[in-house]
C-alpha cells in the first residue's frame, strides 16, 4: 500500500469515529437487534478485535525502537532490518486499528444507544478532542517514521530513533487516555457515604479517568503490549522462516524469532504480577468482585487461564530447549547445583510463606530476596550439573507449578453448587487458595528465569548455528503468539464480565436480556473465532508487507557466527 492509500483508510476510519461520536448525541434512538450473535456478542467481537489491533500497534513500536537502537549501537544490520520489517506490518495494521475503532463506536451506538450516548457525554472531551488528536498525531508520526527510514540513516539515525521514541510517547499517552473510560466502566469513582450517582455529578473528568483501576490497567497493558509485540514478531519470523528460500534467510529469521521471543518472555514474566495488581485493586474497590471471579460464576475462566499460562510457560521453556540444541559446545555448559535444588523446594517454601505473609506484606519479600543470592552462593559450592539436567528439572517444576495452579477448590461452576464429591478434602483445601496459586506463579517465573539465564550462559560460551534450529521451534513461536492472544481475549472477557449486570458498575444497569454471565464454552468459541480473524488479517499483512521485498538488496546478515563475537 502507498502512503496515500494508508492515509485514505485512516481518514475514513476517523470520519467513522467522529461521525459515531456526533451520531451518539442524537437522543432516543431505538437499539438495533444484531442477528445470530445478539447485541452483546456483536460489541464483544468488534471491541476485542479493536483491542487486539490496538495492542499490536502500541506494543510493536516499543519493540521496534529498542531493536533499531540496538542495531545502531551494535552496528548490527539485522536489528535494523527486523525493526523495519515489523514496522511495515504495523503500518498496515494501524489502518485496521482505526477501522475497527470506528466500527466499534457504531456497533456500540446501534446496540446500546442510550448507554453509549451517556458514556460519550461522560468523556466528551476525551472522545471528541483528546483521543482523535492523539490518534491523528500517532498516524502522522508512524507514517513519518516509516517513510523516513531510508532518508534518515547513517549520521541521521539518531534523529530517526528520536522520532520512534516520540511515536511511543504518543502511543503511551493514547493508551493511558483510553484506559480511563475503560477502567471507569469497572470502577467508577466513589467516596464513602455518597452514592456513585451523586458523586458522579460533582466528579471532574480527571476523577473519572484516574479511577482506582486506571493505573493498574495501564501497567498491565504496557507490559502485555510489549509481550504481545514480541510474540507477534516471533510469529512473523516463524512464517518467514518457513517460507525462506535459502540458508541465509533461514539464519536471519531464526535470529529474528529468537530476538522477538526473548523480549516477549521478558515482558511476560511480569504479566502475572501486573495482572494480580489489577485484580487486587478491583477487589479493594468492591470485595464482591473477588468471589465472583475466583469462587463463583467466573471461577472456571480462571481455571482456563491457569491452563493457558501453564501451556505458555511450557512453550517458552521448550523454545529454550530447542534453541540450546543448535548451540555448539552446549554440553560443556554447567550450572551450580543450588539452582535445581532451589527450583525443587521453591513452590513448597513459597506456599508456606504466602500463607503467613500475603503480598504485599514486606515479610514476603524477605523470603524472596535471598533468591538473588543464589548465583553468588553457587560460586562457593563446587558441585555443578549440566545445562540439560537443569532444564529437565526445570520442566518438572513447571509441570508441578501448573498442577498447583490448576488444582481447583472443587469441580463446580460456582461455589454455591459445591458438593462434597467434587470438593478438595478439608485438610487439602490450601491447594485451592490464592497462596498456593501465588507459589505456582512464582515457580513458573523463577524456573523460566533460571532457564533463560542458562541459555544466556550457553550462547556466551558456545557458538550459535543460526538457521539450524529444530523446525518444531517455529510451531512453538506460532503457538506462543496464538496462546497469548487467546489468553488476552479470555482475560478481557473476565474484566468486562465482572461488571455483572451493569454497563458501568453500580451506575448504569444493563436491562437487556443478555446481561448474564455466559458459559466458558460459549466464550471460548467466540474468543477462538476472534483470534482466528485477527491472525488471518495479521498473516495477510505479513504476506503483503514482506513477501515481495524479501530478496531486494539487503546486506547478508545471517551467516553462523560465534555469539561472543558480537
Amino acid at each position: 500500500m502507498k502512503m496515500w492509500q494508508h492515509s485514505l483508510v485512516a481518514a475514513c476510519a476517523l470520519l467513522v469515529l467522529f461521525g459515531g461520536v456526533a451520531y451518539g448525541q442524537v437522543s432516543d434512538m431505538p437499539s438495533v437487534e444484531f442477528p445470530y450473535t445478539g447485541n452483546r456478542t456483536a460489541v464483544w467481537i468488534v471491541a476485542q478485535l479493536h483491542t487486539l489491533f490496538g495492542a499490536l500497534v502500541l506494543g510493536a513500536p516499543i519493540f521496534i525502537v529498542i531493536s533499531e537502537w540496538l542495531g545502531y549501537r551494535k552496528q548490527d544490520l539485522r536489528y535494523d532490518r527486523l525493526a523495519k520489517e515489523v514496522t511495515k506490518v504495523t503500518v498496515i495494521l494501524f489502518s485496521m486499528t482505526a477501522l475497527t475503532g470506528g466500527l466499534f463506536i457504531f456497533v456500540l451506538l446501534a446496540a446500546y444507544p442510550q448507554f453509549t450516548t451517556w458514556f460519550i457525554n461522560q468523556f466528551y472531551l476525551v472522545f471528541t478532542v483528546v483521543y482523535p488528536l492523539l490518534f491523528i498525531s500517532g498516524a502522522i508520526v508512524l507514517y513519518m517514521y516509516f517513510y523516513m527510514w531510508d532518508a534518515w540513516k547513517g549520521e541521521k539515525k539518531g534523529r530517526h530513533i528520536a522520532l520512534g521514541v516520540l511515536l511511543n510517547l504518543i502511543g503511551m499517552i493514547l493508551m493511558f487516555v483510553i484506559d480511563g473510560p475503560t477502567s471507569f466502566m469497572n470502577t467508577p469513582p466513589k467516596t464513602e457515604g455518597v452514592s456513585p450517582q451523586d458523586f458522579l455529578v460533582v466528579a471532574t473528568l480527571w476523577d473519572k479517568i484516574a479511577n482506582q483501576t486506571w493505573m493498574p490497567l495501564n501497567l498491565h497493558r504496557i507490559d502485555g503490549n510489549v509481550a504481545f509485540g514480541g510474540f507477534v514478531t516471533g510469529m512473523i519470523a516463524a512464517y518467514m522462516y518457513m517460507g525462506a528460500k535459502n540458508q541465509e534467510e533461514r539464519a536471519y529469521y531464526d535470529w529474528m524469532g529468537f530476538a522477538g521471543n526473548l523480549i516477549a518472555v521478558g515482558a511476560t514474566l511480569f504479566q502475572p504480577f501486573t495482572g494480580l495488581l489489577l485484580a487486587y485493586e478491583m477487589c479493594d474497590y468492591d470485595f464482591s468482585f473477588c468471589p465472583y471471579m475466583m469462587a463463583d460464576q467466573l471461577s472456571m475462566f480462571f481455571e482456563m487461564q491457569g491452563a493457558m499460562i501453564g501451556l505458555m510457560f511450557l512453550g517458552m521453556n521448550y523454545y529454550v530447549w530447542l534453541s540450546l540444541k543448535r548451540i555448539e559446545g552446549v554440553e560443556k555448559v554447567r550450572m551450580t547445583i543450588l539452582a535445581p535444588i532451589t527450583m525443587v523446594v521453591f513452590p513448597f517454601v513459597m506456599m508456606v510463606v504466602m500463607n503467613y505473609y500475603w503480598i504485599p506484606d514486606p515479610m514476603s519479600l524477605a523470603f524472596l530476596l535471598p533468591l538473588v543470592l543464589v548465583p553468588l552462593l553457587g560460586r562457593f559450592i563446587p558441585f555443578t550439573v549440566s545445562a540439560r539436567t537443569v532444564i529437565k528439572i526445570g520442566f518438572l517444576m513447571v509441570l508441578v507449578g501448573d498442577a498447583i495452579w490448576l488444582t481447583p477448590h472443587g469441580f463446580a461452576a460456582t461455589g454455591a453448587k459445591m458438593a462434597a464429591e467434587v470438593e478438595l478434602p478439608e485438610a487439602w483445601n490450601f491447594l485451592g487458595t490464592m497462596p498456593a496459586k501465588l507459589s505456582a506463579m512464582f515457580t513458573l517465573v523463577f524456573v523460566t528465569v533460571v532457564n533463560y539465564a542458562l541459555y544466556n550462559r550457553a550462547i556466551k560460551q558456545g557458538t550459535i548455528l543460526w538457521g539450524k534450529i529444530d523446525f518444531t521451534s517455529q510451531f512453538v513461536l506460532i503457538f506462543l503468539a496464538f496462546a497469548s492472544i487467546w489468553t488476552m481475549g479470555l482475560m478481557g472477557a473476565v474484566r468486562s464480565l465482572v461488571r455483572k449486570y451493569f454497563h458501568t458498575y453500580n451506575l448504569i444497569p444493563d436491562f437487556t436480556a443478555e446481561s448474564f454471565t455466559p458459559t466458558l464454552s460459549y466464550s471460548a468459541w467466540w474468543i477462538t473465532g476472534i483470534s482466528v480473524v485477527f491472525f488471518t488479517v495479521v498473516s495477510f499483512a505479513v504476506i503483503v508487507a514482506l513477501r515481495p521485498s524479501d530478496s531486494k538488496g539487503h546486506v547478508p546478515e545471517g551467516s553462523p557466527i560465534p555469539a561472543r563475537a558480537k
Partner: protein
Amino acid sequence: MGNIIKKLSIGLVVGGALVGITRALEFPFVFQMMFFGFSIFGAAVFMLLDAPSVRTMSGAKSVIAIVVFYIVLCTVFVSGASMWPQFDPEEEKEKIAKLLAPKRAATEQGKAEELIARTKALDEQVKALEVRLKALGGDQQVAKAMPLGGAPPVVAKAATGDFMKLGEEQWQLHECYNCHKLKGEGGKKRGPELDNIGSYLTADEIKQKIFYPKSFMAEGFEKEWEKGKMPDKFKDVMEDSDAMALATWLSTFKNTSVNTPKPIKKQ
C-alpha cells in the same frame, strides 16, 4: 519408540502412585483422575523433549502444516474450555430480572413498559368479563368477584410470611452466602457466620450494618473491617424495603450453639 515406551511407563507408574496416594487421602475421584492426567501429560512433555528433530519444510507443505496446526490449536482450546464445569446462565437470569426490576421500573422505559403491561392486563380482564357476561346474560356478580385492577385482600399472617420469604430471597439474590455461612451453607471465612446474629443485633441494626458496613465490626474480623471488605454498595443497589426484609429475616437467627462473633458498634 524406546523413548516413548520408557516415558509412558514412568508416566503410568507416577500416575498410578498419585491415584493410590490421593485415594488413601480421601480425595474425590475427579481429583484422582486429574492428578493421573497431570502425570500422563508430564510424560508427553518429556517425550517431546527427547523427540527427534523435525525436518525443515517449505512451500505448500509448510502452509498446510501451519493451517493444520491452527486447526489443532483451535480445537484444543475450545474443547479444553468446554471440559470445565459450565455455569448455567438460566440460574442467573432469574436473579438479575428480580434485582433489576425496581431499577427498571424507575426508568422512563420501565414506566412505559409497566403502563403497557397494565393496560394489556386490563384489556384481557375486560375481554374475559365480556365473555362471561355474555354467557351469564349480564350478571353483576361477575363484576363483584373480579374487581377491575383490584388487589387481592391482604392477610396479615401471609404478609409476614412473604416478608420473611423476601428477606431470604434477598440473601440469595445478593449472594451474601459467598462470604457468610448460614445454616451450615456458604461462606469461606471471608465474613462472620451469622446463625446467632439475632441474639446480638436487632433488625434495624442489621439493616444499618448492611447499608453502612463500617457501623459495626465483628470480633476477630478487625483486618476485614479495616480494609472495608464488606461492600458499601448495598444502600445504592437495594431497595429500603428489601434491605429491611433481609435484616428482619436475619434477626430471626438465634442459634446459640453457633459461634457468631460479637458485633461491636463503631459508628
